């Protein structure tokens, strides 16, 4: 159905994580930048129909079909459709509201407030009860039709290849590829939880409460949607559909060959600095050895917040105050740094910026 040349090109482009993520990030910011035009049904409908047609044509490819039809992966395909639909709905409401707000009208949610009020009993409880019954039926029928995989008993000597976390942890598993276990498994999840919990304390702007808007809250909405859509949902996609045997990257129409050879010799920043740049042996003292990486970290987390306070965030800084600003900017730099570290691995095979294998401290 699909021309081989197209499949070849897609495999070539989309088996590179750097290119795929760059395309996704570019598409993400394009949609937010032109959100009023992109969310119009005239644009959004042909776009989604085109993607659905492409998906249906792709099913004819046996390699594509094997991956999407795995019982574990079917819900992920549905989830991607659902996330896309809900994101479109939210942005569409925001676009309509922003037009109303510009004309001096109240947001749509403010109209007909009396009609919106219903009783918990019976209106809400009935609806919830019916939803519960429908969900149970769907789950039962689904689990009968798509036999959930029961694998052989666990054996410590045999790890499945590829060995994948449950789908909702695939983003975390992807992060583990680029960081030391304690960073990706302990520090980053803790920071995510603390960061989400800190949002009400960092963000004291009351605009956007209770109604959809993008124009009034561009920074907050962009940051949140980037974290959710790119760093969570897209990493789930990546872990499900791109990671194959030996945790190598594969294109959408590529055969998951266990012998696919990818030279990925990864190099620490200290090795880049001393061996490639200065052309000398690694210093024996580990503090001297890791000095370049420590300097990079100090500049990134120590100096950059102050520079940004005077430049990009000079409007935010006075209104937020020092403490609130520092919390916000360090969480922000953490998110950006995580993406930057992934790019450094993909493009330069950079392993760790600071590597103390002596103390299990690698960043």
């Amino acid at each position, binding site marked *: 159905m699909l021309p081989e040349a197209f499949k070849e090109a897609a495999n070539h482009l989309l088996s590179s994580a750097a290119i795929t993520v760059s395309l996704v990030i570019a598409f993400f910011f394009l949609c937010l930048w032109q959100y009023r035009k992109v969310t119009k049904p005239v644009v959004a409908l042909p776009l989604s129909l085109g993607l659905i047609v492409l998906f249906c044509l792709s099913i004819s490819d046996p390699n594509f079909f094997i991956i999407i039809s795995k019982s574990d992966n079917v819900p992920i395909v549905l989830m991607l459709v659902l996330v896309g639909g809900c994101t479109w709905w939210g942005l569409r409401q925001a676009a309509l509201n922003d037009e109303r707000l510009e004309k001096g009208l109240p947001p749509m949610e403010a109209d007909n407030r009396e009609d919106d009020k219903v009783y918990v009993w019976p209106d809400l409880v009935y609806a919830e009860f019916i939803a519960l019954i429908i969900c149970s039926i769907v789950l039962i029928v689904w689990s009968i039709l798509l036999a959930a995989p029961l694998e052989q008993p666990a054996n410590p000597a045999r*790890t499945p290849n590829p060995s994948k976390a449950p789908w909702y942890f695939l983003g975390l598993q992807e992060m583990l590829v680029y*960081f030391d276990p304690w960073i990706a498994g302990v520090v980053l999840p803790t920071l995510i939880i603390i960061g989400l919990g800190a949002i009400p304390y960092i963000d004291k702007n009351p605009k956007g409460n209770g109604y959809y808007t993008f124009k009034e809250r561009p920074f907050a909405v962009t940051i949140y949607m980037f974290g959710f859509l790119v760093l969570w949902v897209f990493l789930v996609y990546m872990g499900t559909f791109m990671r194959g045997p030996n945790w190598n990257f594969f294109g959408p129409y590529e055969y998951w060959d*266990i012998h696919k050879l990818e*030279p990925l010799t990864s190099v620490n920043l200290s090795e880049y600095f001393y061996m490639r740049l200065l052309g000398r042996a690694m210093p024996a003292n580990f503090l001297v050895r890791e000095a370049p990486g420590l300097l990079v970290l100090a500049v990134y987390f120590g100096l950059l917040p102050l520079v940004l306070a005077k430049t990009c965030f000079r409007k935010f800084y006075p209104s937020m105050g020092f403490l609130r600003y520092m919390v916000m900017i360090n969480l922000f730099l953490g998110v950006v740094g995580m993406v930057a570290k992934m790019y450094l691995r993909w493009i330069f095979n950079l*392993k760790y910026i600071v590597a103390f294998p002596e103390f299990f401290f690698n960043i």
Partner: protein
Amino acid sequence: MPPENPVNPVPPAGPPSPAGASPPAPAGTGSKLPVPPATAAARPAAAGAEDLSRRKFLGLISWSGLGWAAFSAASGVGSIATGRFMFPNVLYELPATVKVGPPDDYPSDDVYEKYKDSNGVWIVRDAGQITALITVCTHLGCTPNWLPNEGKIKCPCHGSGFRRNGINFEGPAPRPLERAKIVLLEDGNMMVDKARKFQYEKGEWNDPDSFIPVTA
């Protein structure tokens, strides 16, 4: 509209009180002295809530005491059972020591997987040494696979890669695989003891117990 009480009008802000109807004596309290209605009407809000006699109080104490005792006993038994669960009768661990035969069984530079499933070690002959590499990835502890065509050990969980000698060179693994103790016995067989481990980054691979020299 509820009918107004002409005898004892309830104040508009006050809570409706059954004592407002002013019965002659509260029934069922067991008290022989009739409570004057004026006293009950003076504390209309407290009359229902704080009618706690000594008998009721002691009853309450003993029932809640019994409840707490039962709860404590159940929690205690649960804690002991949980603690016991932490020390199982049988522990399915791979045996720590194994005889792996004479060095002649490993004639060429290669990774030998014979003892991977049973003991979790690869016997590796490389660069004039026979070593026992432990089959646990140093990143998060999955069991990697030896890929003979690529000549590397590759972890299926996060893509860490190790050379034949156990040195990490790709993916996130921060340090090389660990060696187990390997010694040549007097009967000519080699024995691997996983209880003693040797880490490259600590310089322990120079330890004579961590390899057996062979002519390359």
